[in-house]
């Protein structure tokens, strides 16, 4: 299994699309952080040096989660899109193991990527005198939560990819879900549902503000349950599928 996870990490590292996605994530995150810094002194802005300011700035990495999610999606759909699934299943006929390795590699990559994003935003904040460079328990807590969220989103991505094997559709579905469907819920009076949905659970796990938010641990369980359900449903289909 270790060899398979290492292979999947190698697969991610050696595809140019991975680096394009991650670079996009970094640019978006820094742009978001710059916007937070630009708002200092404005209405509703946090005070530079406060814990809230740090949380606001590091929260900019939330936008960087989308590339992490898409990395998970593409790690599965790319196999079908580029028809590499044939050689992949030839060298590892046990298809569940391949999917498990993809999930593990995606989770590892997600955790590493979010740490890198947090470090760049934190450095930016310190350079801009908006963050007190003290490394304290609060910073570790923020980092830990962000890593958990990133792991969940990577797993959700792999899950979506196994269920929706068409690459274009699989990339659009989660974007539409988080950016349109969940944000439109209040307009239809479905606020009560939101804490339980993937987006709401993500907000709760990340420590964001949401009415009726689940406790962090429950949000984590909910997110993992969503990811696992997708993986099992999609995995069963892939395990049975004829690779022609």
């Amino acid at each position, binding site marked *: 299994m270790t060899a398979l996870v290492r292979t999947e990490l*190698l697969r991610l590292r050696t*595809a140019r699309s991975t680096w394009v996605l991650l670079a996009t994530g970094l640019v978006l995150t820094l742009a978001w952080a710059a916007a937070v810094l630009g708002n200092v002194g404005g209405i509703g802005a946090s005070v530079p040096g406060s814990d809230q300011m740090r949380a606001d700035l590091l929260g900019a990495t939330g936008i960087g989660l989308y590339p992490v999610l898409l990395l998970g999606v593409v790690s599965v759909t790319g196999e079908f899109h*580029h028809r590499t699934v044939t*050689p992949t299943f030839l060298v590892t006929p046990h298809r569940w193991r391949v999917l498990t390795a993809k999930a593990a590699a995606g989770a590892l990559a997600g955790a590493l990527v979010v740490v890198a994003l947090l470090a760049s935003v934190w450095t930016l904040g310190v350079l801009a005198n908006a963050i007190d460079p003290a490394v304290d328990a609060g910073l570790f807590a923020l980092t830990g939560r962000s890593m958990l969220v990133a792991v969940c989103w990577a797993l959700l991505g792999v899950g979506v990819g196994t269920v929706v094997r068409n690459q274009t559709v699989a990339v659009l579905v989660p974007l539409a879900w988080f950016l349109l469907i969940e944000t439109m819920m209040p307009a239809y009076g479905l606020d009560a549902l939101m804490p339980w949905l993937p987006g709401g659970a993500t907000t709760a796990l990340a420590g964001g503000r949401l009415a009726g938010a689940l406790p962090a641990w429950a949000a984590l369980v909910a997110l993992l349950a969503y990811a696992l359900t997708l993986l099992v449903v999609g995995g069963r289909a892939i395990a049975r599928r004829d690779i022609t």
Partner: protein
Amino acid sequence: MTAISVHGLVKRFGGVLAVDDLSFEVQPGTLTGFVGPNGAGKTTTLRMILGLVRPTAGTALIGGVPYARLDRPARHVGAVLESSGFHPGRTARDHLRVLAGPSAIPTARVDEVLSEVDLDGAARRRVGGFSLGMRQRLGLAGALLGDPGILILDEPTNGLDPAGVHWLRTLLRRRVDRGGTVLVSSHLLAELALAADSVVIIKDGRLVTQGPVSAITAGAATVRVRSPQADRLRAVLTARGVAATLDGPDQVVASGVDTEVVGRAVAEAGLVVYEMSAQRPALEEAFLALTTDEGSRR
């Protein structure tokens, strides 16, 4: 033990019967051609042997076990399949490193196979810019990674120029001479006849015939006889169970026999013969005779 054995294999895709009760064996140390017209079920059969397509019925075994149960299959079987692809943004060398990973094949071996298929110069180039011939070579490099005893190739000559075909034939022959086993599908028989020891011919998902190349061509051999008593000769041959037809007023064509059989029949019946010639077709013609509608069993 047989290298590859297929027994009662059936595959139904929806309402289409792609492979219909197919059985054949590939002996170790042979180069076997797997031939049939387009749509005969060659690719589906190979994919069932390799565990990629689930048979509706029957079994396909490699060295006595299903492919999925092989430990580190790349070390036992190498395969080049037609519709398998490459990530265009990955280099040739990285593509092979990814394939080598699960079987714990060292990177040194990756460089070795790259030079074996003459791609060392392109090792660090992205596959997206490769020609069809280069992709075929890279696919073959992937199959050779684990130095497997069995190679299964689906139409490997597509995209290769004549020099490339010759190169591939030499490479396959060399592996077989060293004790390896090769099963190679093709719809072009001419390039196969020069290299294959035996052939398995299928049509409409069913086995037409299998055996050594010489036996297949012998089965389709004919003897043409010119005689003023052609009609009587035809009757004599038919009485002996030989398929014979009249071709014009003074010629008889007997199929599936050699000149000895016909000569003896002529002598015993006391007939006059002006001319007799054996016509032993090339594998291509034998194949056509076996797979065109008149020649098929249905």
